[in-house]
């Protein structure tokens, strides 16, 4: 099975088309159904500043309630998938997820502490973001200080250790939290949700995601070479140490932004790059590009299902795991049968 460039173009075009359809579907369905035509008119009016000719409540549902949520889901999916793809190349391991260096645990602890002190929602986001950066910074600093012949292995081990330290921190925060108000808030936050995403949340998270994903995408031909051994990459003229730091920084930035926007959502960063690799081969530029599109579409589809399939909303962090596990097992079976 060879992924020729034009086959890649077909996959990418197809994926973009599917994401567009998912977006239209997501705008239409819900407790207040809006026809696709009205969705289009409302969005067009919002972009051009014209008059949509629709009822005010229809317009509000599309542009003020659903649009931020759709954009957030797309951004979070793209961010997690891009970070996962980059990490899988960096760590030369297809089973690595964006959490490998403890970013999600850091975000969760940050948010937990902010909730414990009953800080306002914007500050909770900021704490979550800062906690994620802090966890990864600790991992990188400790990893550098420890050193060793295999810096990648050192980083992964340090990530596991620091991640479980932050995990213990979260447990402690939960233990001391007020069980009637704060504990449920922490639990809900950890489960993740796109409910009530506001434009001002997006104003913080979206630029971070955009910058991080863009930098990873621009560097995609260099990151490709990181899949080789460090000696090979270095001898091909890649400054491996510096590139590694840039990749970790960008992946952490987008993951922390995503988690502070929607809570800890697993699986997307693990499965989507894997799925992309199955259809377009190992080449990182192709895997990354397709992952960004597939990740965005998958997250939006899951979130739309979460808010419409059942009488009550299902947290997307839970849904991704329920959908992700069977999908991942199927992918594993496909990969291993193919290589057997």
């Amino acid at each position: 099975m060879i992924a020729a460039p034009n086959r890649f173009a077909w996959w990418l075009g197809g994926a973009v088309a599917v994401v567009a359809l998912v977006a239209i579907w997501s705008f239409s369905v819900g407790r207040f159904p809006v026809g696709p035509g009205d969705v289009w008119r409302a969005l067009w009016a919002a972009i051009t500043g014209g008059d949509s000719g629709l009822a005010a409540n229809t317009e509000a549902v599309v542009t003020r309630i659903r649009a931020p949520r759709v954009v957030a889901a797309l951004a979070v999916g793209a961010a997690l998938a891009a970070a996962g793809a980059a990490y899988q190349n960096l760590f030369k391991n297809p089973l690595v997820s964006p959490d490998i260096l403890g970013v999600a645990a850091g975000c969760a602890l940050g948010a937990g502490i902010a909730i414990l002190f009953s800080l306002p929602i914007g500050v909770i986001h900021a704490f979550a973001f800062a906690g994620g950066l802090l966890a990864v910074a600790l991992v990188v600093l400790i990893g550098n200080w420890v050193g060793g012949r295999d810096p990648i292995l050192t980083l992964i081990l340090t990530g596991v250790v620091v991640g479980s330290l932050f995990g213990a921190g979260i447990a402690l925060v939960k233990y001391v939290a007020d069980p009637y108000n704060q504990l449920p808030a922490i639990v809900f936050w950890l489960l993740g949700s796109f409910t009530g995403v506001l434009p001002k949340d997006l104003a913080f998270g979206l630029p971070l995601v955009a910058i991080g994903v863009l930098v990873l995408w621009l560097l995609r031909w260099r990151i490709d070479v990181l899949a080789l051994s460090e000696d090979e990459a270095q001898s091909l003229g890649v400054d491996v140490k510096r590139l590694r730091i840039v990749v970790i920084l960008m992946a952490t930035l987008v993951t922390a932004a995503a988690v502070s926007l929607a809570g800890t959502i697993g699986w997307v960063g693990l499965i989507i790059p894997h799925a992309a690799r199955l259809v377009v081969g190992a080449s990182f530029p192709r895997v990354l590009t397709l992952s960004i599109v597939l990740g965005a579409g998958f997250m939006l589809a899951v979130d739309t299902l979460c808010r419409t399939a059942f009488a009550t909303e299902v947290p997307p962090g839970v849904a991704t795991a329920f959908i992700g596990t069977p999908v991942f097992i199927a992918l594993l079976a496909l990969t291993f049968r193919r290589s057997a």
Partner: protein
Amino acid sequence: MSLEARDLAFGYRSHPVGSGVDLALAPGRVLCLLGPNGSGKTTLMKTLLGLLRPQGGEIRLDGRALGEWSPRERASRLAYVPQAAETFFDFSLVEMVEMGRTSHRGLFARPSRRDAEIARRALDTLGISALADRPIHRVSGGERQLALIARALATEATLLVLDEPTANLDFGNQMRVLAEIKRLRQAGMSILLCSHDPGHALEVADEVLLIQKGKTFARGAPAEVITDANLSRLYGIEVRYHGPHARPVPPAPPQS
């Protein structure tokens, strides 16, 4: 490209591996490093590639200290051919070879048409262009090794450093790789070869450096250096030859 090392000490700061090594490699010549496991061959090779900092002495690439070359300049002159190990990521052969063009591209640049052409030509030179789009897991170990040599050619380097290019290959594939090394030498490349097999050194090398515990054990023309006495002492096992180009045959199993 010529490579020269004088009184080279190599290894890690906390763990010196070897010292006092002199060597010189001129265009169109093959230098073979030969030594038992753990003799420091690989560490020496990495130091000569500029992947490890020398712990003493000096290395010159075309008369200029190796450390003065920028990594990208160095990468287009001095190429490394690793052992054909399995990677998880299943690149196609041509994608693998195109990575050889990395040092010729800007940080954000995608491969140009010229890069693709050079990669194709490198595959052609090694006679594997028919496999260009084949995933690297779907070719034989020998073909994978040839692809890595092709990647080194795609860097347009004229000095190749090969790390045990015949390890883990069957006899036919070993001969194929050795034949390519001879052809590259004839084309004027400088080749540094790490090997386990004295027979291969006799086959392709112009000069042999025997290494034991990080020191030069013997240095010179293959026929002079690869002798029964030297090999017996180097490997700690009695060895005897059948003819100049035959492989050394141990006369009896080691006494344990």
